[in-house]
């Protein structure tokens, strides 16, 4: 992987994000937030004197993605990783924050109509987790893959479009003849190939992949991950890769952001994160993964579960489960602080040097 950034060993302190290193920034997310109103209906609130409840699914997430790299978001369910994906492609509007894609402000993408945003929208695509739910069962595969072409390139003739669909199917390892079949005739892995072909139709630069292999068996997962890596090399694609599987993330990503309850706990180059995780939550997450190589390994068990995000703990959201928690952790939300090794960590204990390297 020539794209892995060399780990900075010097003491150069960068700003809030290590963008200065190399490569052009393709996506810059600053202080993204998305809150959902999860209160009971108005009448119930009045009758039962219930309060208004807000779920802060994402609350202050900042990161950058450089052209050609793969950035992964990992975390347990409910940490907000899928919400970040949906914010970026404009499926949800932002409650707060700013999104810059290739120099253009796309913070209001969710409010623009399809035609207004067509020019920018066709440059990024999304691949969803469930290949059974993301393909229209009534459409033939050719229609599904041709749909983005019909929308973004209405001038294209039917024959050209069919030819392009055939090419796309071949690119993802299927046969052009499959265009005439229906999604139910395919297995989960093949459906995910169809999703990828559809995403590739308009030659996007950037792909948001939300758990693309979580619904697949391991041998099929290997086929899809290899395909995604090949396509990245071939087209210089940039990926935002979302997964809960640490091993998959390690295989795919150049940089990894670990999320916990709507915030990023740590961002670091992949090899760096696996070698020396700083944040207590990253350490716990890595230690908890059952590993084929790890028999007899001491598994540090972390007590407790992810708290209810409607009532998150005060201060650092991880403090009730953290062995290093102190009074400051209970009161004050930690900020992301860049470290000399290229990682950024939001933890008081790491900042104060209470946790060793």
């Amino acid at each position, binding site marked *: 992987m020539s794209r892995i950034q060399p780990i900075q060993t010097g003491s150069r302190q960068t700003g809030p994000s290590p963008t200065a290193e190399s490569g052009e920034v393709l996506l810059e997310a600053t202080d993204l937030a998305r809150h959902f109103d999860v209160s009971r209906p108005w009448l119930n609130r009045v009758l039962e004197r219930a309060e208004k409840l807000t779920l802060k699914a994402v609350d202050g997430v900042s990161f950058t993605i450089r052209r050609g790299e793969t950035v992964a978001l990992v975390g347990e369910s409910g940490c907000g990783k899928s919400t970040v994906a949906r914010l970026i492609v404009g499926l949800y509007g932002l409650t707060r924050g700013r999104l810059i894609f290739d120099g253009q402000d796309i913070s209001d993408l969710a409010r623009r109509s399809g035609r207004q945003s067509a020019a920018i929208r066709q440059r990024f695509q999304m691949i969803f987790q469930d290949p059974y739910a993301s393909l229209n069962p009534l459409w033939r595969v050719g229609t599904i893959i041709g749909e983005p072409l019909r929308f973004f390139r209405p001038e294209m003739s039917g024959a050209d479009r069919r030819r392009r669909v055939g090419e796309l199917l071949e690119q993802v390892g299927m046969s052009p003849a499959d265009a005439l079949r229906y999604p139910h005739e395919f297995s989960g892995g093949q459906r995910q190939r169809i999703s990828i072909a559809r995403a590739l139709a308009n030659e996007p630069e950037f792909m948001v992949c939300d758990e693309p292999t979580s619904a697949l068996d*391991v*041998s099929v997962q*290997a*086929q899809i991950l290899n395909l995604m890596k090949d396509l990245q090399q071939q087209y210089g694609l940039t990926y935002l890769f979302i997964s809960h599987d640490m091993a998959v993330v390690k295989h795919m990503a150049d940089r990894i952001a670990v999320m916990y309850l709507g915030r990023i706990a740590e961002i670091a180059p992949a*090899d760096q994160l696996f070698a020396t995780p700083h944040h207590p939550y990253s350490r716990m997450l890595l230690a908890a*993964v*059952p*590993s084929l*190589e790890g028999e007899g390994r001491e598994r540090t068990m*972390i007590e407790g579960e992810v708290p209810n995000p409607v009532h998150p703990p005060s201060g650092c959201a991880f403090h009730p489960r953290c062995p290093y928690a102190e009074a400051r952790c209970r009161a004050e939300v930690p900020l992301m602080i860049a470290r000399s090794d290229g990682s950024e960590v939001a933890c008081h204990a790491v900042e104060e040097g209470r946790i060793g390297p």
Partner: protein
Amino acid sequence: MSSTPSSGEHNAAAVAGHEPGAAGQKPVLSVRQLRVEFPTRHATLVALDDISFDIAPGEVLGVVGESGAGKSMIGNAVIQLLEPPGHIAGGEVHLSGRRIDDLAEEDFVPLRGRHIGMIFQDPLTSLNPLFSIGDQLIETLRTHLPIGEKQARERALALLTEVGIPAPETRLDSYPHQFSGGMRQRVVIALALAAEPELIIADEPTTALDVSVQAQILALLKRVCAERGAAVMLVTHDMGVIAETADRVAVMYAGRLIEIGPVNEVIRHPQHPYTVGLMASIPGLAKRRERLYQIEGAMPRLAAIPTGCAFNPRCPHAAERCRTERPELLPVGGSRAACWLHDPENPLPRRDTLDTRQGEPALDSPGETAR
């Protein structure tokens, strides 16, 4: 399978002699040549074909395979919860020396819960939402054991404490929806353990849980079963879970058992080409590889299982013999694998150009892009 279901009681046990891991101890569960069929309008589908294995007391047997391999079917066949028209069409199942596959439904009911505990994937569907946790535990205890209400309540408290539920006195009157996913699965484990069964069938017990909770639940399952000497059949698709939890592993492919052996042997030195490919296709945490090994194609559907070895169309070593003759489990190293490569008399030659062992040559050359 031509053996009539009512024939000889223990003649099948003689075949069991060479099962490693079960030596010395009398197995809790002994499955012999189990065959499950689903008759359909067009053909009879064979969902499980010639499955034989033992589980010793206190032992955890992991059953792995990809979707459709039939791993859950084994558990369902043992506990007789096969969905009609599926039925056991041959073979025998013995629980602590007693034959149970030919029992009528009314004779089988007392076994469930009392002698065989079940843990399913989704804890929410295994708990009744209308009854409190305490009611469900007490009902289970009183159904299986001759104890009174008060004693049952004490036992329920002890069980909840044992599975690590904080403040069990107050949680006894809570309802399932008031518990988190991990806590619910702890309750399900408490329910499965309530009557101290000899055998626990855990079908993907941690698949619905997050990794940090998964580690807690697996450690709990392993500890409580070891303490009670219960045998565990752990069905999962996750090799990592097997590596950390199981003592022995059985690998399934297209309804057949293709490799069985001690967990270290199977993971470090897989012998069946399918297991070799499966292990190499899992991304590892320790070393980073540029490409994952991929087994081409997909598992056959039950209606179209190839003749001979079911893996032959995808196997790099396949020869004429593999297409016609079905291999039995043959001893190799510390385990047994159903592959003609390991035939003691006439081993099939390996195709070294396509050697999949760890896939090193193919994995390290970045120039080689697929297709």
